């Protein structure tokens, strides 16, 4: 159980986080979601033992982190956005070094390294020099170093940043498997990423938690704002009559056109997405894509801050 009470951190006069309080149950994956500057990294760095807070308490299994910093650091693992790796070492010697540094006995380490390497899927590259590994593998070695000492809490700061789609899927699997052994706190500014890996989401805005719950709870009652962007395939000259022929449209405009690919911004005036798609398809256009006109995180923030939920 991780318990955070009234966590506050100033940088000079700037209040980066403002009285954060939350609890995380054992073996839960919690997503820390927020725009850049929301206070995610500061909170994570405090939980990892790198920074001290201006005020507040963090307890890991009931032990106060600031009263017993050395003991609680044995219970936490941390992966910053850029994995902290000695690139001249092989993955195996690096994990051995980090394991010893975190108090794992030398006798037990070879077996633990093999186990952790399997869990993070770096077993094939254990004897390669880290500097020669791909970014995805370096991230995985970074996760391996964070869990080599079997911590209670693993803190991952933007673990998918800079990865390609295939690597994102692989790292996501690694993160989901981590919760079999420990509690995981993952930060991101991408809602879809957090929602796919986490049991629960903490939404941070200007240093405060503005929402706490699952994606369904956070988006429950959240009104779709009726503005979409569609990518259609069809002749440009037919677009005006088709769009103007849809009765409930509040407005639309062609934002981009490449040959017969047309990008159209549309204000539906209500949630008429299915009807619009049917109308467009019946009119002879192909629908390549339909997206919310604003990023979903931005919409969610607007919604949550407007509604004053906290």
């Amino acid at each position, binding site marked *: 159980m991780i318990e955070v009470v009234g966590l506050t951190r100033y940088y000079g006069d700037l209040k980066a986080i403002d009285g954060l309080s939350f609890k995380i149950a054992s073996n839960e994956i919690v997503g820390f979601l927020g725009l850049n500057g929301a206070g995610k990294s500061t909170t994570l760095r405090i939980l990892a033992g790198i920074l001290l807070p201006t005020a507040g308490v963090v307890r890991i299994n009931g032990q106060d982190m600031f009263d017993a910093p*050395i003991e609680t*650091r044995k219970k936490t693992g*941390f992966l910053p956005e850029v994995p902290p790796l000695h690139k001249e070492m092989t993955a195996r010697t690096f994990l051995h070094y980090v394991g*010893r540094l*975190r108090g794992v006995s030398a006798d037990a380490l070879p077996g633990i390294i093999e186990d952790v390497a399997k869990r993070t899927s770096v077993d094939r590259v254990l004897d390669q020099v880290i500097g020669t590994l791909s970014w995805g593998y370096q991230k995985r070695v970074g996760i391996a170093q964070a869990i080599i000492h079997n911590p209670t809490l693993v803190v991952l700061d933007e673990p998918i940043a800079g990865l390609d789609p295939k690597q994102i899927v692989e790292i996501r699997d690694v993160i989901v498997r981590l919760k079999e052994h420990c509690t995981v706190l993952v930060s991101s500014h991408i809602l879809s990423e957090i929602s796919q890996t986490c049991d629960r989401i903490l939404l941070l805005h200007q240093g405060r938690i503005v929402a706490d719950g699952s994606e369904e709870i956070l988006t429950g009652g959240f009104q779709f704002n009726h503005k979409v962007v569609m990518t259609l395939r069809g002749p440009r000259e037919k677009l005006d009559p088709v769009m103007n022929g849809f009765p409930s449209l509040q407005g639309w405009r062609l934002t981009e056109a490449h040959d017969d690919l047309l990008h159209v911004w549309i204000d539906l005036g209500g949630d008429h997405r299915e009807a619009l798609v049917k109308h467009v398809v019946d009119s002879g256009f192909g629908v390549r894509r339909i997206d919310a006109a604003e990023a979903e995180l931005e919409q969610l923030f607007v919604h949550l801050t407007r509604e004053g939920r906290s």
Partner: protein
Amino acid sequence: MKGILLIAGRDLRAYFDTAWGYVVTAALLLVNGLLFNAFAMGSTARYSSDVIEDFFYYSSGTVMIAAIILTMRLFAEERSQGTLVLLDTAPASDLSIVIGKYLAGMSMMAITVGLTIYMPLLVMVNGKVSVGHICSGYLGLLLLASAVVAIGTWGSSLAKTQYVAGAVAGFVVVVLLLAWLLAKVSDPPFKDVVSYLSLFDRHFQPFMRGRINTESVLFYASITFAFLFLTVRGLEGRRWK
């Protein structure tokens, strides 16, 4: 203690995992050999003890420069590469991190200084020089290296890049080297204080001449302690920044 040795061992290996350690050691040996041949040996007949004294005189300069170059990376490189996080999150005290780093730098310096032994041995074989003189000189070199390694460790803990770290440490070393000049134009009791701080003139010269001066041993130990203490304090402060 385990943490100290782990950190020291990794940092010492890091000198040899890259070309850095080899290049600095080779450069020190080359420059030391050239200075020994050109100036200490000279072209005219000299007493062996004078040759040894000059050898330690020139070695003190190369040792100070090598110590600054070897230590400037200790913290600064970890900071620039983001690996300082490993130490920040490890269950190790700031004191053990600093001592581990210092020991790595000091071990590297001991290896480098040790490799110069062939020069006094040549003098010993071909001339007449006491083992005590050589031991005293090497003790002085190691004490001087210890002080400069501590200064370099402190400089490295402050700076974001190793070049800035080297510049900070170099500046402090130069100030301490020039303290004897300031002492010359100062009045007591300031004169005594400044004179005591002279890194080379007052404290190293006895070792060069084969004398072990307790006051100088204490001076180098104090400088080492003071800068390691400042480094620990600085590291503790970063958690509040």
